[in-house]
């Protein structure tokens, strides 16, 4: 077998083992601690116990959301940084999070979210979808002539939606403001199980599709002209991947709020240690993102237990510090 393939499978196995370990710890730890050996026993034998309900109804969905969101945001980061050939781009740069935040804040302020259980993420998705649509319409009508202009337009849309978001907050009542701010800070809690599985499936599908395009991403990272001359359908590949990144980000933001830093830092962190080959970087970033966010959520749940910190704050703090440390030492 190809040496690179062997390296790939070794890295994949190690990361999956770490992910499994982290999931186990996250299942066991919380306001009520359960030892790991007891964990299996409860899961296998005590289906009617309170512990079982806590594990299956509260902690497991949270972990699944963590895997889906952490993976998807890191994936979007990898895609956007490769397509725009800009290391500072992250999933929120194109204004998708701003759109989602706007949608959610409108639904809270106008009390549109009271009739349906799904409506908060639903409005988030509409907001994110509007931004994606706006960017694609500008692209399709030829307003955007190159990828750097697309990026600039994304940044501007982000500013506009953020300003509108602030406007709505400033006009809202204090209890509404509190729920908007809490949503903005991000949380992996999602009571609707169907939505959790939906998110996980979309996120895993995104990982599969991006992996299929990972060699194209390697070629694209050389620049548009070189990729064209190496037989890549630049426009087509770019549009598919940007659309994928937008959809993934839109879903994540709608369900878990704005969890910053993951999409920016995880791909860098992975490249720092594993090199720049996207065949490895794509899948490694997905799993590392999942591990990182589950650990951050664990900290958020346990640091001031029984109170809970917003996970977005922990990802920013922990992620930033770890990254600076790695950068200084490598």
């Amino acid at each position, binding site marked *: 077998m*190809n040496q690179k393939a062997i390296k790939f499978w070794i890295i994949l196995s190690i990361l999956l083992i770490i992910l499994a370990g982290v999931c186990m710890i996250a299942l066991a730890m919380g306001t009520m601690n359960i030892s790991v050996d007891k964990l299996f026993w409860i899961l296998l034998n005590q289906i009617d116990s309170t512990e079982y309900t806590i594990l299956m109804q509260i902690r497991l969905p949270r972990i699944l959301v963590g895997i889906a969101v952490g993976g998807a945001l890191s994936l979007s980061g990898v895609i956007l940084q490769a397509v725009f050939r800009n290391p500072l781009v992250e999933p929120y740069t194109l204004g998708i999070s701003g759109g989602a935040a706007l949608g959610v804040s409108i639904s809270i302020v106008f009390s549109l979210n009271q009739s349906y259980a799904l409506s908060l993420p639903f409005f988030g998705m509409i907001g994110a979808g509007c931004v994606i649509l706006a960017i694609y319409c500008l692209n399709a009508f030829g307003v955007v002539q190159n990828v750097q202009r697309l990026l600039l337009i994304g940044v501007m849309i982000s500013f506009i939606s953020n300003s509108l978001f602030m406007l709505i907050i400033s006009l809202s009542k204090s209890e509404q403001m509190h729920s908007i701010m809490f949503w903005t800070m991000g949380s992996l809690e999602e009571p609707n199980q169907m939505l959790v599985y939906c998110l996980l499936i979309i996120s895993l599908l995104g990982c599969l599709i991006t992996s299929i395009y990972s060699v194209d991403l390697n070629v694209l990272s050389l*620049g548009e*002209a070189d990729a064209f001359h190496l037989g890549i359908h630049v426009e087509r590949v770019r549009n598919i991947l940007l659309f994928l990144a937008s959809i993934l980000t839109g879903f994540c933001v709608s369900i878990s709020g704005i969890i910053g830093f993951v999409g920016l830092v995880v791909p860098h962190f992975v490249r720092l240690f594993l090199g*720049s080959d996207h*065949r490895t970087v794509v899948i490694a970033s997905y799993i590392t993102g999942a591990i990182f966010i589950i650990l951050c959520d664990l900290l958020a749940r346990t640091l001031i237990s029984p109170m809970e910190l917003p996970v977005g704050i922990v990802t920013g703090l922990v992620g930033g510090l770890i990254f600076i440390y790695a950068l200084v030492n490598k």
Partner: protein
Amino acid sequence: MINNEQNQHVLSVSQLSCRQSSQFQLRDISFNIPKGCCAGIIGPNGSGKTTLLKAITGYIPSKSGTIQYCNHAIESYSKQALSKEIAIVLQSTELDQSMHVEDYILLGRNPYRKRWQFWESEEDVHIAETVMKITQIESLRYRQLNALSGGEKQLVRIARALAQEPNLFLLDEPTNHLDIAHQLQILTLLNRLQRQKNMSIMIVLHDLNLASEFCDQLILMENGKIFKMGKAKDVLTYQNIESVYHTLVIEGENPISKKPYVFLVSEDNLKKSMPQS
């Protein structure tokens, strides 16, 4: 026309025009490149040399005219098929990534990748090794691109393009920013490839004497049009050069190769050397 035998032509360009917004970048360009020929494209900055190369590969769309590769319209080739035939080394390619040289060269095998192929085949690795040997960069194999010198980077770019196993090789100012030893190394390498593999080469050069020395045919461009083409002795005349570059030159001859050699003359020095009247 450089060569009148149609069947021997690897590339035939006829009345090609390219336009961006209201401005013509190329106008009514026609020429043929015979198989195994090294054609040099010369001309002042902004005369359309790079645009011509990019138009040949289809990267810049043409407004009118035809481009035929091996007697078939360039549009009839799929993108992948074309990139197996024509490789280009662009001036704008920045090698600032942390990628290893070998991985970069292996990207040149992309046109040969099958749809669901994830890893390079043994043949790909073998070809990458061969082109590294040809370009004498085997020692750089595991070095990172961003740690290479200018000359090394240019050789690596050429090696990546050679991994495409092209029949027509386009190069945009490959000797730019290089010292004379590296300039000579690269052009000698290209001449060797041309002879050994019967490869056709189109190369944009600023140095008229290098172009005269290494190219079989020259195309002199001015304002998006071909001003003159043919053998170096017909193109590199002081009249042609003065009218295109608006610069004084003196024609001479390389004492070894007997090919035309152009001496630049600054007007100040010319005045000084004139006897006082």
